[in-house]
């Protein structure tokens, strides 16, 4: 560990010359990509439900074990299209601890999102937290599978059935993950995945909707485009939500790499676990109960035990070019356009607030080498060992 005065926040050289990111940024072999793009140019088929999109939909359906996969421009648009395809109106309950896009997608679909709190332990909604947000106007409930962990689909399904609600899922973190022996993608009325470059399956941008409901799939495929020949159901609103052949080429190559990328993530995660295991005040999110894609290394910072607040650690690490993240800060209940509206009707979000205030995600992904992880953990260890001194110096500096 370098002397305190040499920490980047105090003017020293950053520990990393180039930034290390919290993002998968997994790239397939260039030769695979090159070949795929040559094919696209030869076929001159660039968009509009082309052969690569069809192949990707087929491959994903087989991998997940679901009847229908509808590829889309991005995960947010996928969730909007799914919400519209479910023909809901009125209120939909959604957790406040999520990326804002989950909630925005529902607003775009003409629904009224009502936020609920989450369990401070699992970070996800439960039937108890969801129940607090229900009203007579509630028509649906959106579970979010955070960090690749399943948002208890069995319990939520029972809860949804009891209250006659449509249950669907934001599975943007969860490609390649499972629950109770079943792949995520088969639960609820439909689920939505993201293939954003920061996710484990990289389509540059992109995503898909999965469902076992054939009539819903027809509506989704119709809503996704404006073409007469791609009309499979009567719907009242349509949008361009099509995935291009370029995105599909990337996603197909990335899908082939998925098992290897999951294994590499698992190894990076294991290394973090080894190196952070005994540090006081830092607890690593565990993925014990089912298969995970290990695309996030989530740590919770307990200020009392480790001597500094998450935001101080965030600042120190960022200065060292360790571009860690504070997902999801602030909570959606504190963001426009939702704060002080019907969306925050339940009033208090103690679980969400605690997580928003204490979680940190550490770099992982193809660009993060084992030696990077060792250096990041060394840095962390050094900072925590001298937390008191660092905090005092920061205070003086301020």
């Amino acid at each position: 560990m370098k002397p305190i005065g040499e920490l980047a926040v105090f003017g020293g050289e950053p520990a990393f010359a180039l930034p290390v990111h919290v993002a998968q940024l997994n790239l397939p072999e260039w030769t695979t990509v090159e070949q795929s793009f040559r094919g696209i140019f030869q076929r001159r088929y660039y968009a509009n439900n082309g052969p690569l999109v069809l192949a990707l939909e087929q491959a994903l359906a087989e991998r997940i074990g679901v009847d229908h996969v509808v590829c889309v421009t991005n995960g947010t648009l996928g969730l909007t299209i799914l919400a519209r395809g479910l023909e809901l109106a009125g209120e939909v309950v959604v957790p406040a601890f999520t990326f804002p896009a989950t909630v925005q997608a529902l607003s775009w679909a003409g629904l009224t999102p009502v936020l609920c709190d989450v369990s401070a332990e699992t970070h996800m909604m439960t039937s108890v937290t969801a129940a607090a947000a229900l009203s007579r106007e509630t028509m649906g409930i959106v579970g979010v599978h955070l960090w690749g962990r399943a948002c208890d689909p069995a319990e939520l399904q029972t809860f949804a059935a009891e209250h006659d609600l449509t249950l669907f899922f934001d599975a943007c973190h969860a490609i390649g993950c499972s629950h109770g022996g079943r792949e995520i993608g088969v639960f609820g009325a439909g689920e939505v995945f993201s293939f954003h470059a920061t996710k484990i399956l990289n389509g540059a941008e992109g995503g898909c909707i999965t469902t076992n409901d054939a009539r819903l799939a027809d509506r989704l495929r119709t809503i996704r485009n404006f073409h007469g020949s791609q009309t499979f159901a009567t719907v009242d609103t349509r949008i361009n939500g099509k995935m291009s052949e370029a995105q599909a080429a990337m996603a197909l190559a990335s899908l082939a790499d998925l098992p290897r990328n999951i294994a590499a993530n698992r190894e990076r995660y294991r290394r973090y676990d080894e190196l952070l295991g005994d540090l006081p005040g830092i607890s690593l999110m565990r993925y014990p109960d089912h298969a995970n894609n290990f695309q996030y290394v989530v740590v919770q910072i307990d200020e009392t035990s480790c001597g500094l607040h998450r935001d101080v650690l965030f600042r120190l690490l960022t200065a060292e070019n360790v571009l860690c993240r504070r997902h999801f800060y602030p909570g959606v209940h504190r963001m426009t356009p939702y704060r002080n509206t019907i969306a925050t009707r339940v009033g208090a979000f103690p679980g969400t607030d605690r997580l928003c205030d204490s979680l940190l995600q550490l770099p992982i992904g193809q660009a993060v080498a084992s030696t990077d992880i060792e250096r990041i953990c060394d840095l962390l260890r050094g900072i925590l060992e001298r937390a008191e001194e660092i905090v005092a110096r920061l205070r003086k500096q301020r």
Partner: protein
Amino acid sequence: MPKTESMLAVPGGSDERDVKRSVDSLAIFGGAPLFAEPRPIGQLAAPDIDDYLALIKQAFDRRWLTNGGPIVERLEQRLADFHAARHCIAVANAGLGIIMLLRLLAGNRHGEVIMPAFSYRGLPHFARWANQTPRYCDVAVDSHALDPQAVDEAIGPQVTAILAVCNCHSPGDIDGLSRVAATRGIPILFDSVYAQGATYRGEILGGFGVAEVYSLHATKLINGFEGGYITTNDADLAAKLRWQRDFCLPGTRPPSMTESETILGLNAKLNELHAAMALLSLDRIDDTIARNRQRFEAYQQVCRQFPGFSLLVPPEPDQQRNYGLIVAEIAPSWPLSRDQTIAVLNAEGAAIAPYYSPPLHQSDHVSRSLPSRHLLVTESLATRFLQLPGGELVSLEDVATFSNLLAFLAENGAAVAAALTERRIG
């Protein structure tokens, strides 16, 4: 109909098999189609594959495939220059750009958006996603663009925006529409998707209204696989659109916005793979337009000889046009109806359709919401036009083949019409 030499002698003619010699040889009656591979109407231009691979390899080496990458940034700068506009905001597709603008301009209020009914079928859907109701207006007979007087009459207290459309052959009366918009205090935006590269009174499109929206879809002039962009001279609007495009995240809120102002965010980002394609296509836009013009003129040379069949010619000959769409008008003196003509051409391998027909206020593509008055010009136009094959997949030889077919129909139209009626086609 009298036979003339000029009709038979099509310049740049094609070989024997490409000529129809009898009614029965038409594909619609069982003959071999002229084209085994249907000829489309979309532009489908592409840059050189090696140039493209070299550019995206740079993105790979940077591991930067989306989220405002350097290629998107370069594309935005180049497009702003091309359109002589101060700001360009690249988006995932043009429809999302229009939806974002309509939502912003309405300021979270539910209202109505004035739009033409003789136009792209996506328009009313865009309004719906922005929580607005489409209010259809009639168009001018020559430009097919919104008629300023009809717009003025349609403006009521509910109207939040005018969505004007600039067409391929003419952008319409931009000054007249802008005057109505300014007088009535209603923001006007232009869907200029089909007017890329066009000028209005000597000025390149891109800086008119509060904003203009363009497409980078593969079938448009600049191929970005999928994609679109917004041009505007309004710095505040540009900042808001950039914020909106990327989820309206709290840390990136534009400083010009007040605390009480809210915008609904989304993911409308253009990725680097698409931006790279668009950037290289933009480099070649002059050649693309020149080839379009050649196709247009090749069709025109032949079609001008047919009774009742004419190409839609730009009414302002001194202005730049991109000739991306080749639209033909069918008059009563043409021996077949518009839809019969399309049926015959479809069977021969022309992947064509009626042009903006049925009009939006009579279409079941979007469920009807506002009771709509008759739109006399629109309804008349909607019966008359079809689009001919065009774009990069249509060679001049293909144009000659289609022209031969049209010449055959011009000469033998009565017999073809009778055979179609007998077989209950069209």
